[in-house]
């Protein structure tokens, strides 16, 4: 219990009244551990910002509890919460120099004068902005402003740092650099990071755990590997990475394994999930790179090559099963690889049981 930085229980946020009510968050329950890099991932409008704003205190929940290190905070104003925010738009104070921006938090905390200045300078050093102290925010590039916003939030010595798509305004190269810096900063400061993005790659590479959100709810929480390898819902599997969805009939379940009959009539083996019953209709999710493309005659599902898409390191092949169901298979480009077969030729698709996931809707 004690090492939970944030605990939300049935957090609901509604905007508007009457017929115009929007439920931005719908009974969200989540626990975020201390010193965790926790990412909220989801499509636009799914409630990521709203959740951050509730944690920061800019909005009050309609229902539910919010605890910070075991203390109820849902009714504390923002300036009483040891939580700081890096805003999506940075929200730097335009009339204050870089140094005064960063010193704002410590000043409001009434720390000793000498310490304030030192802390601000230390934070600017941390984000590698020494020498920019006297500039005004508008005299900085987007990436520099972003780092000032980061330094300003860190100088407040938060226990939890909230970051709302802080990298979305940056170009790819700067973005990569900042991703590494953010991880480094989190490591050095030991602060809990709650990070919002709708970039799945960013989420997968940076996070300790990810919460995938949709329509105001959290669909799944897990490590990047869990989220990618074991999606529990069709939405999660679809939102993160490429996925083949196959309608299937569960033939039998035994010892953690299950046998499925695809709509094409072919049989595949897969992992069972709790509650899976034989005789039920299910949706299977299979990642294209977890499928094998084999020569005709080898053990596998018979298919016809439809289309080849060369993308450098890999080739994405579209094959059709007996009933016309299309399947994407991603193969690495190695010398003499089988996918060189021409469209129209007969191939086999190898499916290992670990690659087959049953997903809910």
């Amino acid at each position: 219990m004690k090492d939970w930085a944030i605990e939300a229980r049935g957090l609901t946020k509604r905007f508007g009244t009457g017929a115009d009510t929007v439920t931005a968050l719908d009974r969200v329950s989540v626990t975020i551990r201390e010193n965790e890099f926790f990412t909220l991932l989801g499509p636009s409008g799914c409630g990521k910002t709203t959740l951050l704003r509730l944690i920061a205190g800019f909005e009050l929940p309609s229902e539910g509890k919010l605890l910070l290190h075991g203390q109820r905070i849902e009714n504390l104003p923002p300036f009483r919460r040891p939580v700081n925010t890096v805003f999506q738009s940075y929200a730097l104070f335009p009339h204050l120099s870089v140094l005064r921006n960063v010193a704002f938090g410590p000043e409001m905390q009434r720390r000793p004068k000498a310490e304030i200045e030192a802390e601000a300078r230390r934070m600017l050093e941390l984000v590698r902005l020494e020498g920019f102290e006297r500039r005004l925010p508008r005299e900085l590039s987007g990436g520099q402003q972003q780092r000032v916003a980061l330094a300003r939030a860190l100088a407040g010595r938060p226990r939890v740092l909230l970051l709302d798509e802080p990298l979305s305004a940056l170009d790819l190269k700067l973005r990569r650099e900042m991703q590494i810096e953010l991880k480094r900063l989190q490591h050095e400061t030991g602060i809990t990071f709650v990070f919002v993005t709708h970039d799945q790659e960013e989420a997968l590479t940076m996070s300790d755990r990810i919460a995938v959100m949709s329509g105001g709810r959290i669909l799944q929480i897990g490590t990047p590997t869990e989220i990618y390898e074991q999606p529990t819902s069709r939405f999660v599997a679809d939102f993160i990475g490429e996925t083949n969805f196959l309608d299937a009939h569960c033939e039998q379940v035994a010892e953690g394994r299950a046998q499925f009959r695809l709509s094409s009539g072919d049989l595949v083996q897969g992992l069972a999930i709790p509650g899976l019953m034989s005789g039920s209709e299910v949706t299977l999710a299979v990642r294209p790179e977890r499928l094998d493309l084999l020569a005709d005659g080898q053990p596998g599902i018979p298919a016809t090559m439809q289309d080849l898409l060369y993308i450098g390191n890999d080739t994405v092949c579209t094959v059709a099963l007996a009933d016309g169901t299309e399947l994407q298979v991603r193969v690495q480009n190695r010398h003499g690889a089988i996918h060189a077969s021409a469209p129209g030729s007969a191939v086999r698709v190898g499916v290992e049981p670990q690659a087959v996931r049953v997903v809910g809707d």
Partner: protein
Amino acid sequence: MTDPAKNPLFRFPGLKPAAWLFFVFLYAPIVVLLALAFNDNEQATIWTGFSTRWFGIVLDNADLIRAFNNSLIVATTATLLATTIATLAALGMNRARFRGQDGVNALISLPLIVPEIVTAVATLLFFIMLGFRLGLGTVILAHTVFCIPFAYLPIRARLEGMDPRLEEAAQDLYANRRQTFLRVVLPQLWPGIISGAMLAFIISLDDFVITYFVAGAGATTLPIYIFGMIRIGISPEVNAVSALMLAISIVFVAASWLVGRVRR
């Protein structure tokens, strides 16, 4: 880059003479007035020679100086009051969301389009109904009221252009509401407040109609005094007073422009 002036798309026949005509029309009377302020002749409209004696006469005129002082007192007090009220109104209107807000907003600016003579009569009747004694107090009161919308508009515009995230950022960094206002909102608002105050000051300094109605004896302001002088006859003294007022306005505007530049 091509010179936009040479681009036929941006050339309109007759634009140049029209512009010249406009500026002549606008500034010729003022130039003439300034020139005649230095005319030696008793008759304001006949030039006989250069002299600054009218300025001396103006500065020796105790009634005129008193009227000028009254104007300053009224304009300064009304500006301070109106700007304060307008700032509070703008802040309130910016933060709150209530039904009929657009209506209230329109009501605040409505005095700008009500004919001044209507306001003047109404205000006078109102003061008499309440049993107020007409004097400098009633002038200040009336000026404060009609200056509010002038001060309000630039402040409101400035507030609307302000990123609401800034206030959130301040509170996020442990500033309470008062500190947020003093450290973040007010510094952002200053340019708006200064332009609002300037507008209010000039409008008040310059007002004739309403002042004429609500000023009792002894509360003569400069515009009313000048009007009185004109009725007796146009003397170069009037020109000199006008020239002085113009100079004060220019100094005033230039000073606030400089203040605005230094703040940046």
